[in-house]
């Protein structure tokens, strides 16, 4: 399974900060398989895999942690 983490406005909209999803080949495929989660990729959103910046088409393995990150606003 894939552990999906949501933050900021994405977590508020989902009503949770974490989801458990069936494995998929890529982060993009995770969302493509579930249209109800398409809001996790708003304009400017990025994705991290296992706490490191990644890409929507990067390969995933069972057990990975995928974080859906809206545009950051530090400072």
């Amino acid at each position, binding site marked *: 399974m894939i552990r999906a983490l949501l933050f900021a*406005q994405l977590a508020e909209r989902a009503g949770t900060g974490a989801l458990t999803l069936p494995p998929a080949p890529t982060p993009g495929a995770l969302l493509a398989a579930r249209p109800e989660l398409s809001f996790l990729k708003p304009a400017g959103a990025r994705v991290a895999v296992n706490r490191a910046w990644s890409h929507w088409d990067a390969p995933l393995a069972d057990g990975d942690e995928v974080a859906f*990150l809206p545009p*950051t*606003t530090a*400072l």
Partner: protein
Amino acid sequence: MEFLVAGPIDVESLEESARRTEPGAVISFQGVVRPDRTPRGELTALEFAAYEPMAEEEMDRVMAEIRTRWPEAHALCRHRLGRVPVGETSLFLVLSAPDTTQAFQACHFALEQMRARVPIWKKDLFADGSACWSASHRETLLISDSVLSYPPS
């Protein structure tokens, strides 16, 4: 490194630590929550949230890159989480180096990298009790109504 902190930042202690390296130049930067008036109302505070494990690890990497680029520079940085009222410091960065050029370059690098890479988000809290997640730049927030409703519902 303890980059993220829950309460007020001990600025004096961090500056003193930076001076122990007997540098020729010390630059300190504070991000302070300013009392903006926006189309949505009067801002009273910002609330910061982070993907904490990744933010700590990413900031460690930024600091490591500073040590590689400017081996004689010494950097310390703290960012608050949670509610930070107007007038309080949300970010503190202090850079010490043998000379001014290195200190300024490293300071600029740290701020730019933090803005681009460290997963932290801020929410605007208004006097009427309402709140919204901030856009990347407040200037954008002030000139575009569409940004006020970000993300689109």
